[in-house]
């Protein structure tokens, strides 16, 4: 019973959660009415309420965290998901590692973003800001009441159990500890884009300033989501021990869909910002992106996707989710249909132009989102008609790759294109180094690697095309080779953050494409039985199993295999994969050993050969995965690119505010 914190903490948390709901209602309904009636008292409620809501939810979350740290098993949620023997980090990450806690975290982040708008949105027109805050609060009401009435993390149990149940060793991993909060920061970040879109529809106005407001939020959300997806994929790669990193699992698709739509939103917002066109489409994308984030949150935690019968096992939760989704998606789409025509159409452009390229981007990203959505939800609909089916990975590959290919080809070209009206011949002439590199890469693949797989060749061509195009575009911007190196360097430093951001993010895609292509096309795999002393060769490496020894870890016992890796007789490294056995709950995990190199990872897994195998024999799995680390590097580069764009001074709101004040002064001067 040691270490149990004061029980009253959970009551304080519960009370704070109830108060947060009250505050959220105050933040939503009266200000919305006030904005309509131009009632300043009502409108004045929104900003302070937004801050108070953050305080309340912060308190509730902190209390739950204290209950976890102090192992207060009188709280059912803590009892189900924690354990006294858990290391502190995993006690804390256990807070959001379950349905109830993650919904609370969601609401907390939502209120955090709301408070940020309340505090830093001084330059927003008053009615607009109030409407944004009240839409944000409406979502908050939905989430907090979902938490309180169907998924309350503060429910108690009596008698108090002595020990908690949750100690799933697979989930005790730093990668997984930070994966959900990252994803949530991404999902919830899109709520701001959504609130801005709804407020813009209510106001009947979308302009460049609107886009300047929406872009940084969308960018930040996109960065978090990208990082979150990459972390999850990386975790699957090294922890699940079968060397895969993406399985087209519904849970993964749930995070990919908002990412695809969010990426489209990011690009269409640029068009609104620069050219004040594609306004209603951008508003629609903001609605879609956030709706997919909501869908993602719910399907991951509710288990709806595995089977519609998950609804039956907990009808309240299922019906609530269905109602909430219908209300948010249906309501905003109806509002869109009614009000989109009020948005003034913007400037026109030629089909071949920067705008044209961005439209292309949006078309294919939207199509990809739609097909992933269809494949993910199809089993659910089929289940409703009594068919039990799953949509397997080949569907997603067959659909996704053909839709991404044209997108990536144009992604390399569009940044060279002028706004409004581009010149394709001129652009292609400038891109000759990229074209030459693609030809050289294909020839190298055919002769040196002797690859004839069209998929592999196409992947390499796409990756090289994008990477070289990014370099050419950057070189052109800094006048490389046309002026002195010093002058080019000065120009490079002076480039706007968004230029660097785009280059990094696009180069990141290029790296990801190359990493995926190489690791899939040239993977070497050996699955076999080995006994100590034996050697197997694996794509140019010799792997010797030198010993297999048992031992004890902090809360598990292990059997550790030792592999020596040699290349042409030269010792490279030693790999030590393990089989770990945890007692409480009884679980066995395989711990892969990975030696990452720029040229590729060497990956080893050992496991029991089975009950009736010859003693001394071990089942082993050895992989060589060429260039796979390029994939993680590419994802990182995308996030870095997003951060560079965020740092762009033109996106800083102070700049927009100053411009607005200047315009107002000029107007006053002329009046």
């Amino acid at each position, binding site marked *: 019973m040691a270490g149990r914190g004061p029980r009253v903490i959970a009551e304080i948390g519960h009370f704070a959660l109830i108060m947060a709901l009250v505050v959220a209602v105050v933040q939503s309904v009266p200000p919305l009415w006030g904005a309509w009636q131009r009632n300043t008292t009502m409108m004045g409620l929104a900003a302070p309420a937004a801050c108070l809501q953050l305080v309340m939810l912060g308190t509730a979350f902190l209390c739950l965290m204290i209950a976890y740290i102090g192992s207060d098993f009188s709280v059912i949620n803590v009892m189900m998901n924690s354990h006294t023997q858990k290391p502190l980090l995993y006690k804390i990450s256990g807070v959001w590692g379950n349905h109830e806690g993650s919904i609370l975290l969601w609401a907390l982040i939502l209120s955090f973003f709301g408070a940020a708008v309340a505090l830093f949105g001084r330059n927003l027109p008053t009615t607009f800001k109030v409407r944004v805050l009240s839409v944000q609060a409406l979502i908050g009401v939905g989430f907090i009441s979902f938490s309180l009435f169907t998924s309350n993390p503060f429910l108690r149990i009596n008698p108090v159990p002595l020990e908690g149940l949750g100690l799933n060793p697979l989930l005790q991993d730093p990668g997984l500890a930070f994966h959900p909060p990252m994803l949530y920061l991404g999902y919830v970040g899109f709520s701001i884009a959504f609130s801005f879109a709804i407020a813009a529809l209510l106001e009947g106005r979308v302009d460049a300033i609107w886009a300047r407001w929406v872009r940084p939020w969308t960018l930040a959300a996109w960065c978090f989501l990208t990082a979150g997806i990459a972390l999850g994929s990386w975790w699957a790669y090294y922890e699940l021990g079968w060397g895969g990193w993406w399985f087209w699992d519904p849970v993964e698709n749930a995070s990919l869909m908002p990412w695809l739509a969010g990426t489209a939103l990011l690009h269409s917002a640029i068009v609104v910002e620069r050219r004040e066109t594609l306004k209603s489409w951008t508003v629609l994308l903001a609605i879609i992106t956030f709706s997919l984030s909501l869908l993602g949150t719910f399907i991951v935690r509710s288990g709806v996707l595995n089977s519609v019968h998950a609804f039956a096992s907990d009808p309240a939760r299922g019906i609530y989710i269905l109602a909430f989704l219908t209300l948010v998606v249906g309501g905003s789409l109806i509002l869109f249909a009614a009000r989109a025509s009020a948005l003034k159409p913007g400037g026109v*452009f030629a*089909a071949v132009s920067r705008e044209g390229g961005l439209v292309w981007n949006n078309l294919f990203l939207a199509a990809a989102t739609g097909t992933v959505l269809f*494949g993910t939800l199809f089993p659910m609909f089929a289940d409703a008609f009594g068919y039990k089916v799953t949509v397997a990975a080949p569907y997603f590959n067959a659909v996704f790759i053909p839709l991404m290919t044209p997108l990536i080809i144009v992604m390399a070209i569009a940044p060279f294109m002028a706004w409004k009206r581009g010149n394709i011949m001129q652009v292609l002439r400038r891109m000759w180094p990229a074209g030459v590199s693609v030809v050289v890469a294909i020839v190298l693949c055919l002769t040196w690697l002797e690859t004839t797989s069209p998929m592999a060749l196409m992947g390499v061509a796409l990756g090289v095309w994008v990477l070289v195009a990014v370099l050419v575009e950057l070189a052109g911007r800094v006048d490389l080779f046309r002026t002195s190196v010093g002058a080019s360097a000065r120009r490079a430093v002076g480039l706007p953050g968004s230029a660097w951001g785009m280059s990094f993010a696009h180069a990141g895609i290029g790296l990801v494409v190359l990493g995926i292509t190489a690791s899939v096309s040239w993977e070497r795999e050996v699955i076999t039985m080995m006994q100590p002393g034996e050697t197997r060769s694996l794509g140019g490496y010799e792997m010797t199993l030198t010993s297999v020894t048992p031992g004890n870890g902090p809360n598990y016992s292990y059997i550790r295999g030792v592999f020596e890796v040699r290349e042409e007789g030269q010792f490279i490294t030693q790999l030590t994969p393990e089989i770990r056995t945890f007692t409480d709950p009884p679980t066995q995990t395989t711990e892969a050993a990975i030696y990452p190199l720029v040229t590729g990872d060497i990956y080893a897994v050992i496991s029991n050969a089975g009950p009736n*195998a010859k003693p001394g024999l071990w089942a082993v799995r050895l992989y060589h995965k060429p260039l796979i680390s390029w994939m993680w590097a590419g994802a990182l580069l995308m996030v870095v690119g997003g951060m560079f764009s965020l740092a762009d001074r033109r996106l800083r709101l102070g700049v927009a505010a100053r411009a607005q004040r200047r315009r107002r002064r000029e107007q006053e001067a002329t009046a």
Partner: protein
Amino acid sequence: MGSSHRRWADGGYPIMKRKTQRAVLIGSGMAVLALAVGLAIYALDDSLNFFLSPSQVQAGDNIPSNTFRLGGLVEDGSLVVDGEMNVQFVVTDRVADIKVYYDQQAHGLLPDLFREGQGVIVEGTYGQNLFTASRVLAKHDENYMPPEVADALKEAGEWRGEAPE
């Protein structure tokens, strides 16, 4: 017209009229949509895996000729591994038993959480009273029961209690 010809000649395309632009946007949207729908229908044809319980497989009607999923419990004491790492076990819903064959060398080692007496989903083809699996799925924690398996057991009247949440 003269100026628009010059634009074409220098590689640029003319800026569209608003009406034309809307038509082009809607048209290209439709085209990409059609492409996506076409791809989806084409791809779905090969990738739909039906789920069957051991009883349904034993009954023998409507067994898909291509890959499908079979789910149930791994029968206690049924797991056999030969020297070539080929695995055999029995998947049961306590009404019908189906023998499953799985080649680890070709398809990968059995997952960590594969256990006798626990829920499992296997993916593969069925013929001559043998299910040849190309994938074995046993995920999540030790209490986890794939919902399809739970349903299959319920239908067979062999369901004992709810799985803890």
